[in-house]
């Protein structure tokens, strides 16, 4: 395909014959007068509000009460077996009524298979960043998050968001994230509006998203 590579690049250059030779990409001015954040309210309040707006279940708990809140959420859900990343903190599951199936650490033994993930009642993870203005949780497979499949196949996702991970805006989140790791930005449960524009929650991703904001 080398032929096409050269041909396309040559065609691009020919098409741009009006661009002065000396012009560098950086010479094309990009005005960045937009805001870094919109000051729409206290971040945690805003996050909770926006998550609820997209029909996620939200609970705000004290940092020391995460274990209890996880237990309560799983009890309410009736979950008896849940998946978790290998490095999820012990204290999350201190009073957990469900059996916790941990994924294997990367490179150590086979990861949980798709069938196994399909059979659990849910998954419990942390997140990398949460964006208050848009009600978005970003997972990047880093600390307490595990592989992407972990939060995709189970039908219920319980996500623990530490207050320190919450930013106001999209620009603040992008600045914190590195695309070297694969990312999943999640804003509410899976949804479709494809049929007469009526919003239906729950198509292929987890049909229920529950968020514990740990302050």
């Amino acid at each position: 395909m080398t032929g096409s590579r050269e041909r396309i690049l040559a065609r691009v250059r020919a098409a741009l014959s009006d661009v002065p030779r000396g012009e560098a990409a950086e010479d094309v001015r990009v005005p960045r007068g937009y805001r870094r954040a919109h000051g729409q309210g206290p971040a945690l309040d805003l996050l909770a509000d926006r998550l609820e707006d997209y029909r996620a279940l939200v609970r705000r708990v004290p940092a020391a009460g995460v274990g209890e809140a996880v237990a309560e959420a799983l009890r309410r859900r009736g979950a008896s077996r849940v998946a978790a990343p290998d490095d999820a903190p012990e204290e999350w599951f201190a009073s957990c009524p469900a059996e916790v199936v941990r994924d294997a650490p990367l490179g150590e033994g086979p990861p949980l298979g798709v069938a196994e993930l399909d059979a659990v009642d849910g998954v419990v993870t942390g997140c990398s960043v949460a964006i208050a203005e848009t009600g978005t949780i970003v997972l990047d497979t880093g600390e307490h998050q595990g592989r992407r499949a972990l939060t995709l196949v189970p039908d219920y996702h319980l996500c623990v968001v530490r207050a320190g991970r919450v930013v106001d805006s999209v620009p603040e989140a992008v600045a914190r994230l590195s695309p070297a790791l694969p990312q999943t930005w999640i804003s509410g449960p899976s949804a479709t509006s494809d049929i007469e524009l009526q919003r239906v929650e729950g198509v292929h991703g987890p049909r229920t998203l529950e968020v514990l904001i740990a302050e």
Partner: protein
Amino acid sequence: MSGTFIGMPAFPAAARRAVQDAQLRHNLRKATHTIRGKRGEAVGELDDWAELREAGRAIKDRTLRHLDRYLEQLEERATAAGATVHWAADAEEANAIVTRLVRATGEREVVKVKSMATQEIGLNEALARAGVTAYETDLAELIVQLSDDFPSHILVPAIHRNRAEIREIFVRRMAEWGVPAPEGLGDDPRELAEAARVHLREKFLTAKVAVSGANFAVAETGSLVVLESEGNGRMCLTLPETLISVVGIEKLVPTWADLEVFMQLLPRSSTGERMNPYSSVWTGATPGDGPQDVHLVLLDNGRTDTLADRVGRQALRCIRCSACLNICPVYERSGGHAYGSVYPGPIGAVLTPQLRGVQGPAEASLPYASSLCGACYEVCPVAIDIPEILVHLRERVASGPGHAAERAAMSAAEAVLGDHRLLNMAQRAASAARGAVPRRLPGPGAGWTDTRDIPDIPPRPFRDWWREHEKERARGDGPGAAGGRADREGGER
């Protein structure tokens, strides 16, 4: 551009047919107005929308003016991250590359994430010829595929179907493609979505090969970004072993940080949400996570021709949000199919003739499928001056060698909008609105709030007119075609 829509009639004929379909018109009106309203709210929440829009425009211009450099950078970074980069000059070559890659895996089935680029090149048909079945996994695309139909909207491709029709399609066709529709399936959207979930779930969990497009490709890092709602994208991008992404060369953005602009512009302009439910970002292959055999096919297929046109090249800034469709009075009445391309609405009217050339009658008629009211420009998140390109393309059509310019010009917009009075009215409304807002965006810091009040054709007079028009049609003496319209439109701009 290949296959899908070739042989469809030119815009005026196709539009006239669509305008007579009452059900279609009802669906379209309801849908476009609903999304339009949501978009207005989501955009109105950000008091720096004008600045974001200006930044989005400028970032895309920077990319396009130095596209060669950014393409080379993207290739280098994606390759370093473990992806294999391929270059496809046209649809045929892109299809051949993807077919070869799928064949190499030994698989006969692929799952697909909704992608305009693969529709543009007719990939599903090419794969079918090679004995490979491509399963569309986006709910709307599934509906379109099961009914051997064509998409009619960028964002909601089955917008022309109502729930009863969709139920009917599922009941009749699902079994041929895999898991059949459940017994006694009703037409509640919830039930229909559940049927789609069950129908596709096994495919997702067992698929070895996926094909996707991308909303953005980051040159600096080699990353691809896909925005979606249902989770079918995540399934396709995460579970298979092989991932092949077909990406138009205009999808690039220079840096990771540039996404801070587009991740605000696109969801709000598109679905009218603060953020779409799911976005996936991946950079080459990640050991132990997701597909390990990762391919990126960079597609030209007419884009460099478009880039060569100094007026027309701004169409390549398009991020396919579909806001211009939802605001367009012509689209609202004609629907997407009349545009004879996977790119319908105002953006289709400027993109299709540039990608394919204006020689064919269908392509030549597209620059006339507009009243030049300018609403599309006002809502466009990357400030593409669609009316300017339309006028420019009309000139190209009119001066084309051996082309019956008049025939092409004849009443494309009029097929939808009707008579002189209406058009004059629309133009008056538009020019009045345009007088109130700056034609070009002011620099950062200057206010821009006025432009959020999108100029629309005055609803009252139009409805009166339409009723009249329908009565005439019922009597069998609908409005005749009047020539010369196009010149005047052009002149008034």
